[in-house]
């Protein structure tokens, strides 16, 4: 499988065809061995009794081995959708915002819904890398790299929507602090301008964080390619065609390209302990400043609504409610992507264990309850605040089904889709069996993702479609352009993610190694007598 390991036994182990080194796997009796309920036992973070070299081989193998067939199929579909979506965007830019279903009453609809949806998804990555890092949650090492990648791709998708929503995008520079030809500057008291700064800072800091985390792993990929070149075991470019033939181009040696490209971006990293010292300091600082940043971004996004005077938008609960919702939706997307990868990528299960999934399911349950609490609190305050417009917005514009009440809300189905997906569906995680079942977790994550889209739709469209005068009431109906651009953004996101798992280190290799028991210089169970349990739990390295 891996060019670095020509011998059959190791190759089979790396392909997931053979279990770990004989007799050293610890069976803790539950699931894959990580689901112990004993708080004194620490679950192993890497399964299969792996050595450092094997962890390197597994993760680098994803980027070095030829892409499997499912990858090509998925990539073809995703990039086609992305291409069609881009054409819709082009059509919309050329023709105008009128190609969307917006009207005088509902002047924000799917565009801003999609923006808030994607930016919310983009919160999990930084949450995992920053907040869980500060809280010393070691299990984050299995998911942080892919979650950070997902964050960046989601923010890219988010950035599309406000960008094209301005209509005449050649005036998008009005967003920046540059005076126009009448010497009019942007208004710094507008939350929309705060949003520009918040989202662009967030995108930049996320990219820096992601890149810094990848420097050592890119250096690993560089060194492996370089070693293969020196040993003369590099293979020429080869592509399996759907007909079963192999297209081989002798002039292209992928390892040469790898050594150059990974080499350039790894900036000459030498794995020096003196460098690691400053690297860890920088990582901790970035985690420290990203934590308030990630909380600020969705708070500021919520100010877009909360600082207005519209009933249903003008609420002080919005910032924490949006942040909780973002964490909720972001973790759901992480699970949505990673659970299928566990099934199709060799040895993925050893690095992303059932315990990791269970932990994320618990976070979904917690944040789902927070979101549910916020939904309830909005209603309570609408009633308790005694503002009849507020009460009307929540009951007659959202909650009352038309088939039950004469003055019902035409968007009742959107509201109840949101409630059932976001509040009811995560409740299954109270049952241990269900949160330990990857398929069940995936299904809930799918519902949560849908529910979080509906949450933003409910806030935006039901907040706008009925103004203070009944004569201004209207409905929103999406056009093909609305649908095409939204589906296209899913295609763009998936395409970028597929490119990521093929060409970049999918796991934080250096961080994974650092949490393996063999990385501890004092050895498990030696320095701390209380850690004797760990020794047993971690497979006695």
């Amino acid at each position: 499988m891996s060019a670095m390991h020509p011998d059959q036994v190791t190759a089979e182990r790396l392909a997931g065809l053979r279990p770990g080194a004989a007799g050293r796997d610890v069976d803790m009796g539950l699931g894959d061995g990580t689901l112990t309920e004993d708080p004194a036992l620490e679950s192993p973070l890497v399964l299969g009794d792996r050595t450092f070299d094997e962890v390197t081989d597994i993760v680098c193998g994803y980027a070095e081995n030829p892409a499997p067939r499912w990858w090509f199929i998925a990539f073809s579909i995703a990039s086609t959708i992305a291409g069609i979506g881009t054409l819709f965007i082009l059509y919309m830019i050329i023709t105008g915002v009128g190609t969307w279903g917006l009207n005088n009453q509902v002047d924000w609809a799917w565009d801003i819904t999609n923006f808030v949806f994607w930016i919310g998804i983009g919160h999990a990555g930084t949450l995992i890398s920053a907040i869980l890092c500060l809280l010393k949650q070691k299990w984050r090492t299995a998911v942080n790299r892919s979650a950070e990648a997902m964050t960046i791709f989601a923010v890219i998708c988010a950035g599309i929507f406000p960008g094209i929503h301005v209509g005449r995008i050649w005036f998008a520079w009005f967003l920046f602090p540059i005076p126009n030809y009448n010497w009019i500057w942007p208004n710094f008291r507008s939350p929309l301008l705060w949003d520009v700064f918040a989202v662009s800072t967030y995108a930049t800091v996320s990219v820096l964080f992601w890149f810094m985390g990848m420097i050592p792993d890119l250096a690993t990929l560089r060194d492996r390619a370089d070693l293969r070149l020196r040993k003369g075991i590099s293979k020429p470019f080869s592509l399996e065609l759907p007909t079963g033939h192999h297209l081989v181009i002798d002039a292209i040696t992928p390892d040469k390209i790898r050594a150059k490209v990974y080499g350039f971006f790894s900036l000459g990293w030498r794995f020096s302990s003196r460098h690691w010292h400053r690297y860890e300091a920088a990582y901790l600082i970035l985690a420290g400043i990203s934590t308030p940043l990630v909380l600020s971004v969705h708070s500021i996004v919520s100010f877009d609504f909360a600082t207005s005077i519209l009933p249903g938008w003008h609420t002080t609960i919005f910032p924490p409610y949006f942040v909780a919702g973002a964490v909720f939706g972001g973790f759901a997307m992480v699970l949505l992507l990673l659970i299928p990868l566990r099934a199709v990528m060799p040895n993925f299960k050893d690095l992303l264990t059932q315990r990791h999934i269970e932990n994320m399911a618990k976070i979904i349950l917690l944040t789902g309850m927070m979101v549910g609490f916020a939904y309830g609190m909005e209603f309570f305050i609408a009633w308790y605040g005694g503002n009849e417009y507020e009460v009307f917005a929540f009951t007659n514009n959202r909650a009352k089904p038309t088939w039950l009440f004469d003055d019902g809300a035409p968007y009742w189905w959107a509201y109840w889709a949101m409630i059932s997906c976001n509040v009811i569906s995560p409740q299954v995680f109270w049952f241990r069996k269900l949160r330990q079942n990857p398929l069940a977790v995936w299904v809930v994550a799918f519902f949560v993702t849908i529910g979080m889209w509906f949450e933003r739709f409910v806030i935006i469209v039901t907040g706008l479609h009925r103004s203070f005068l009944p004569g201004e009431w209207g409905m929103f109906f999406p056009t093909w352009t609305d649908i095409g651009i939204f589906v296209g953004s899913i295609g763009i996101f998936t395409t970028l993610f597929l490119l990521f798992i093929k060409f970049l280190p999918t796991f934080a290799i250096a961080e994974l190694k650092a949490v393996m028991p063999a990385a501890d210089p004092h050895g498990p169970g030696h320095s701390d007598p209380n850690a004797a349990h760990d020794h047993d739990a971690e497979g006695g390295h």
Partner: protein
Amino acid sequence: MSMLQTIADYFPFIPKARPKYVTESGNRVHGLIAEYATSAEAYHAAEQIRDAGYKKWDLHTPFPIHGIEEAMGIKKTILPYIVMKVGLGGAAFGFLLQYWITAIDFTGFTVQGKPYGAWEPFTMIVFELGVLHAAFASLIGMLMLNGLPRWNHPLFSSDRFLSASQGTLIIAIEANDPSFDPEATKELLEKTGGKEIEIIEDAD
């Protein structure tokens, strides 16, 4: 001269100091590397090399070893102070930018009759720009303090060194360390459990 030498690797036209040791082929000796099997061995070896008075040496490991700073005698980095200064500078820039535009250069927006220079609406962007500058400072500051990017290094000539990025732990002692002596340093590396000791040449 020593200041120049620190950047001589980047600029080929700067003459390098005369090498202390050369190999038979005439290349300068960069130093010695030795391989260690476990992080515990490398940790204890680092303590002994530190105590032997070496200054220009390093431990190359595929992951940061917890507590190695103490074992190697690495001083705490000044990076946090750099980041703090740049971050506060970024925040100050954010405030001045908004204040100058809103209260001095262009007083065109009267919002709810509030004073032009009111600081409250500026807080969000002050915070964001502070964070943005601090983030750049921590990445670029870390790289600069580490002397990176530096794409070429004598250590990369060794196949064994390249495996440090996978599972091997390697100690490298540079020849321009005042305590360096080909025989004595090799003995020290052997005594601390170092295997596969290798001379690194600097072919320039």
